[in-house]
Structures are given as structure tokens and as C-alpha cells.
């Protein structure tokens, strides 16, 4: 039932995920094994949040659903971010879901989960004050 585009899209996503992982590992090696701590967003109220004073742009399209991410807190302050570590079990993906997914590539060592900044581009600097 699949067509060529379906297969291409699937392979591209899996390959891209491998590239992201490889990039993260290379970054860690280059930094002497220290993560730069830019991956996750800080929980609301965290002292590590860098966009507390960010304001709506005067003319930017509505960022109603996706907005720039705050700076990540130090790894030690990070909340657990895997389904298995969740306190909210009702929201965790079930085994039935995970078994339907494409075979995941092996997870990195725990220290590798904190890797390059996800949105390093200048366009995501805090918007101007209205």
C-alpha cells in the first residue's frame, strides 16, 4: 500500500535522527565531554529560564503554538524526561504504542541526552517589546 514517497519519508526521518545523535556525540567530544546544556526548556518558574521577560512581538505571526525555548537548566536540575520516569503514568506512552513504532536506534549514554542547543538560530532570540 505504500508508495515511494512514504518509504523515502520514513528513511529520511530515521536517518536524520541518527545524524542528530551523531552530532550530539561529536559536540560532546569536542567539548571534552561536557554538555552545553541547551537542549531542554526550563520548567516554568525555574531560575534557569532565560525568557522570563520575553514579550509578544509587535508584528510577528501569532506564536500561539510554538515559541522559542528557554535555556535549559543544568542537568542536575532537569526534570526526568522519559516516559518511564514520568510521575504521570496516565500520560506515558503504552507498550502497545511503542511496539507499533519503527525500531528505535539504541539510546545514548545518559550524559548524551543533554546536547547542542536545539534552536541556536538568531531568529529565536527574545522578541522585541511591543
Amino acid at each position, binding site marked *: 500500500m505504500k508508495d515511494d514517497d512514504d518509504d523515502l519519508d*520514513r528513511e529520511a526521518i530515521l536517518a536524520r535522527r541518527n545524524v542528530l545523535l551523531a*552530532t550530539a556525540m561529536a559536540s560532546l567530544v569536542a567539548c571534552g565531554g561536557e554538555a552545553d546544556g541547551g537542549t531542554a526548556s526550563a520548567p*516554568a518558574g525555574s531560575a534557569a529560564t532565560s525568557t522570563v521577560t520575553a*514579550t509578544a512581538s509587535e508584528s510577528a505571526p501569532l*506564536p500561539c503554538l*510554538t515559541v522559542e525555548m528557554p535555556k535549559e537548566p543544568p542537568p542536575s536540575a532537569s526534570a526526568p524526561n522519559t516516559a518511564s520516569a514520568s510521575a504521570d503514568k496516565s500520560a506515558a506512552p503504552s507498550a502497545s504504542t511503542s511496539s*507499533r513504532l519503527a525500531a*528505535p536506534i539504541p539510546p545514548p549514554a545518559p550524559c548524551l541526552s543533554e546536547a547542542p542547543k536545539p534552536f541556536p538560530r538568531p531568529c529565536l532570540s527574545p522578541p522585541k517589546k511591543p
Partner: protein
Amino acid sequence: MSRPKRYSLAIELTAFCNQKCGYCYNDWRDEPSTIGSLPREELLGLVDRALTEVEFDHVTLTGGEPFARPEIFDVLAVIQKHGKRALIISNGGIVTEAHAERLAPYNPLFVQVTLNGPNKELHEEHVGKDCFEPTLAGIRALTKFGVPVTGCIVITRKNARVVGEILSLWKSLGATDVALSRYSPAGYASEQVAELLPTRSELLEALRQASPFGEAGMRLQVTMPVPQCVVDHAEFPHVNFGGCPIGTEMQEFALGPRGELRNCTLHTDVVGDAKKASFAELVTAPSVMHYRDVTPEFCAPCPYKSSCLGGCGAAAHSVFGERGLDPFVAQHVDDVFGDKLRAARKGIAGFVPATRLARRSAEGAAR
């Protein structure tokens, strides 16, 4: 309790809407009359209390169609009293010059209006009959009175390959800022997942067509999560991308037409009843603060998982019945879901999203 800071509060002024968009994420889209809206005094009191108890950067007025509620101007006055500004999400279809003239003094950040096709046929295929010209008239009325209009395109399977033409239309209307809202199958919209969900290839084509407009100075913001494993954001330097902000200070909460507070306009799960609890308590509730604790198993090895969260959790919940991988990604890496979508597209078998199925079962049991 201290006064927390949050980015925005989206107030759903009414469940009523003059359009019938297939991509509408309002769960009540096909039965607005059962939802209604808050009485005027109760609404104004809630808005006043929300802005007192939480330091929101701004307020978003939405619906339904917010201009269908005459009290929109009373709400704007309350927002103005608190020294805040509003942005308004409207389909533009019932906006008259009288509305625009009355709106201008409130100095809204902008009114965001959606066009999903470069012509009447394709736009109305998304939103219903006889909506194209009224929307254009609404845009022109707002522009005439100096109200900033931001464009929006909901990118679907039907229009992804003509996004360049739609952006040309927006340019001709004077828009300098356009939101590229990748269709997300949340709420009512999940019913149309097979029909509307663009593939990775289709979204890439849309972004390629959009890029020259960005390069020429148009500000383009993708307003739904597009995970980095699907699209390398660096390939589109003139398009802004972001991630789901739930659980961060950049979150935009939704205040529903019954006074319920939700994590965003797409989520159906209720954080709490704002008529009974303080907004400060609600925005710091455990279900909000721990939202980011969960990421899909597929994302386990990804270095972006903490910010990406696997895409739109609301869409995942609507389609699969639980927080997990965004259907936009899952269509390509979840074989069972991918096969179901393809079967639905070929008319072999229908696909009913998990939450809609549960809802129908509950309604059937109640009868």
C-alpha cells in the same frame, strides 16, 4: 501566593463560529450550541482576575469566532485597563469596517486571519462555502483602519504544494508576517487526519515554496511543532521554527467558553475550573509543571527530545488517546498508523481517532 509570569492567555470568547473548517481544533466544532459561552459579567470578571493573579505578557482572543461575541470590546477594555495588549485570531469573515474602526483604538498587537488557498475554491474546500470574499473584505476593513493583520496558512495535504501562491496572495494584501500553521490533528480536526495531514515530503515542498518569500523579507513563523527529525530547520534559514511551550514560562494557556483552563487551545484535558480556583494555582498545577516529564519512546535517543517532546502532544492525544509521538511523525514511523491512514485515503476503511471514538461511545451510552 506569588504572582507567576506566563506568556499568554488565550480566551475562547464563544464556541460559535461562522465557518466550518475541517482543520478546526476546537473539540466542540460540530456542536457549539452545547457549549455556548460565559455570561458577560462572569467573563469580564474572569479576565480581570486572570490578569490580576498572573502576569501574562499579553492576551489572545479567539473562539469560535471572537468577533461573533459583541462583548469582545468589553474584554478589550479590561485588558487595556491592566496595561496589556491583545492579539486576535479571527477568520475575518464577519469583520466589518465598523468593527475595525472600533477596534483600532485598543491598539491590538495584530489580528491573525487565515487563507488556505490562493483562490475561492481551495480556500472554501477547507473552511466551507461562501467564505473567501467575506474574509478578504474583513482583511481590507482592518487594514483600512490601521489594524495590523498577520496572515496564516494552515498547511494541509490539499494546499501544501501551492503555499507559494497563497503567500503571493498574502503579499498582495500587504501582509509582511505570515504564520505557517502545519495542520495538527487535535480536537475536531483529528477526524480529518487522513484527508488533511501533510506528509513530510509535502511539508518540505511547502517550506521550499515559502523560503523565497522569507528571503525577500516576509517574516514566516511555523506555528506548530515540526520535529527536527522530520525537517532540518537549518535548511530553511528564512523560516522560524519553535517547539511546544507547555510547562515553560512561554506557555499560552486556554480559557475555555465554560471557564475551564487548559494547557493550550488544542488540548481538551482540563487543568481546572477557573471559576473556582485561582489562576496562579492553576498555571502552576502539577499537570502543567510535569507536562514535560513525558516524551515518546521513539524520541529516547534524540538530543532534541526535551525541547521537542515528539511534536504536538495534543494531536497525539486526540489521535491515539494518549500523549505520545505526534501523528505528523508517526504517520511515517508507526506502521500500523501509517497503514490505517493509507487505507482511509484510498477509501478502503475509515479511520476514527481514539478520543473521538471514546466521545461517540460516551454520547451513545448517555442516550
